[in-house]
């Protein structure tokens, strides 16, 4: 059943995308580890990490596309799930530091020692074990998405109202995580990580492995999302997006469907965040900033909402642009990003991939229409 479900998602575009992603996931680390630094095809470690970051963003974009592109739920708070997954991973990494911190406390992370805390808060217990942390990476964002979705969708909060309250949600979390007494490192967040499941986080080999895992996550998310989208469930999502109350009157519980897809999306975002943190080496409250979540929306819009590969393309393209701008023309990045929002919504509503698909569809339609008169019925 599961096999059929996943297999059904494999149309030509998805297969191509999967192949490319997995090839990159293998080739880039190989070019980093196996080729000597002087070699023309050698990929430096900082680029591996940068690409790894893009991969986690691509997963976040996929998660967002699943709810926005297919179900019409414009979440302006997906950064919250990403950051929560990141914090869960960050807590594990903090506990791994052990007595190697500045204060040398074997149990308490440095910031707690600094705040004169005497014991570990209860919600930090268990995070010294990877399995538990991994479970929390899935559970915490998933649970928040489920509870939030359950309440919001059951009360039929839709459209811009939903967008606004998702924004309020991540804003509230931003404020909360800034507080020192929350016990998540306040303003500075969690950083100075040493190792992950026994491997040093800074080492090139660990970086390469994390990159590969990030690509694997993109691929798995794509496969899952494609399976969902192609299933009857996915058709119901699109039906909800197009005519919510019609869907309700033919007997589908819209709130349940939305809650399920929102939860799946929240979990994917959380997983992306969990892989993001060991690669960038820090997680702090600014990840909850509403601006981050909206930026993720523009990735999807640029790539093409409602096209899964589009979300990946958009995330990589926009972030590559960001890297380039902040290096070359830092003052102009916000102009470029702002302009992107305006231009895409006005002139490219289907995004890059969506527009290409449309052009191609028109061309095949024209090709199909041309020889039609000859073999009449």
């Amino acid at each position, binding site marked *: *059943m*599961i096999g059929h479900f996943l297999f059904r998602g494999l149309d030509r575009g998805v297969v191509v995308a999967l192949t490319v992603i997995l090839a990159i996931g293998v080739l880039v680390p190989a070019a980093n580890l196996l080729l000597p630094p002087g070699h023309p095809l050698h990929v430096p470690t900082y680029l591996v990490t940068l690409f790894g970051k893009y991969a986690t963003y691509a997963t976040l974009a996929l998660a967002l596309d699943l709810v926005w592109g297919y179900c019409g739920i414009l979440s302006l708070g997906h950064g919250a799930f990403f950051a929560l997954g990141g914090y869960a991973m960050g807590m594990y990494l903090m506990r791994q530091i052990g007595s190697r911190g500045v204060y040398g406390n074997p149990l308490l992370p440095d910031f707690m020692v600094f705040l004169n805390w005497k014991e570990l808060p209860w919600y930090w217990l268990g995070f010294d074990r990877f399995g538990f942390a991994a479970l929390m990476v899935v559970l915490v964002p998933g649970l928040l998405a489920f509870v939030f979705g359950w309440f919001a969708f059951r009360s039929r909060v839709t459209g811009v109202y939903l967008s606004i309250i998702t924004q309020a949600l991540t804003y509230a979390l931003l404020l909360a995580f800034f507080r020192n007494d929350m016990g998540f490192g306040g303003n500075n967040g969690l950083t100075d990580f040493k190792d992950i499941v026994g491997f040093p986080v800074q080492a090139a080999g660990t970086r390469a492995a994390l990159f590969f895992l990030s690509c694997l996550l993109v691929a798995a998310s794509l496969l899952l999302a494609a399976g969902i989208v192609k299933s009857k469930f996915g*058709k119901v999502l699109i039906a909800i997006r*197009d005519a919510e109350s*019609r869907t309700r*009157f*033919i007997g589908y519980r819209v709130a349940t469907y939305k809650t399920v897809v929102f939860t799946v999306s929240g979990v994917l975002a959380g997983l992306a965040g969990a892989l993001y943190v060991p690669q960038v080496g820090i997680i702090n409250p600014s990840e909850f900033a509403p601006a981050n979540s909206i930026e993720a929306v523009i990735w999807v819009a640029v790539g093409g909402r409602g096209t899964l590969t589009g979300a990946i393309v958009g995330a990589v393209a926009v972030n590559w642009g960001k890297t380039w701008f902040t290096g070359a023309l830092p003052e102009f990045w916000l102009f470029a990003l702002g302009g992107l929002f305006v231009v895409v919504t006005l002139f490219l509503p289907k995004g890059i991939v969506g527009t290409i698909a449309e052009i191609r569809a028109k061309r095949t339609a024209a090709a199909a229409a041309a020889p039609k008169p000859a073999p009449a019925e």
Partner: protein
Amino acid sequence: MTEPLAHRALLYLDDVRVSFDGFKALKGLSLTIEPGEMRAIIGPNGAGKTTMMDVVTGKTRPDSGEVLFDGGGVDLTRLDEAAIAGLGIGRKFQKPTVFESHTVEDNLYLALKADRGPFASLFHRLGADEAARIDEILATVKLADRRDDLAANLSHGQKQWLEIGMLLAQEPKLLLVDEPVAGMTDAETMETAALLRRIHDSGKSVVVVEHDMAFVRELGVKVTVLHEGGVLSEGSIDHVASDPRVIEVYLGR
């Protein structure tokens, strides 16, 4: 007195009242639809036709009154839209609403009677019997050659029919059809009347809300006239058309 009536009826409304911010949309509406009956409901704008449908399908909760289904066994006021649809009440909107980004076939596929749960639909596979049923409905609503087209590309009348087809796919016991011939040509109107009669003949109960008197006459069924949130008159089209109160508020303008 009312009990036996409720037991006999497929749909039973008694003294239903609804108000929106002081505006009384329904003022003690009572209505009974027998199993297998076809009924036309007419009335001027604001008479409460759409609100009545909203109440029956669970979109609007009445302030008071009884709404019972299936011989009085089910209290519709306690259920949501999805549950009511699951019981076998299908609704067609005034403005045709189909899923525009889906193909005609997928529109019917989504409407087919099946488990509506999210996990069931996640792993659902289109079976041979379902495919046959879709073929059958496509033939009924004359859309077989548009099967793979997006619903968005259908004409207005075709959308209306697709929506009726979706109703059929649900295999409901009761169809609520709101202004099915609005915006149709005369020929389409007559065809639609024939289609609805055929559906009725297959044993389903149908409630048609319509403005078009020619269409109602064509249906040739019992007519209920609503006015200001209550029943003004009820009977055959000729009986109703000669009722002086009906003439005053509706026909004779």
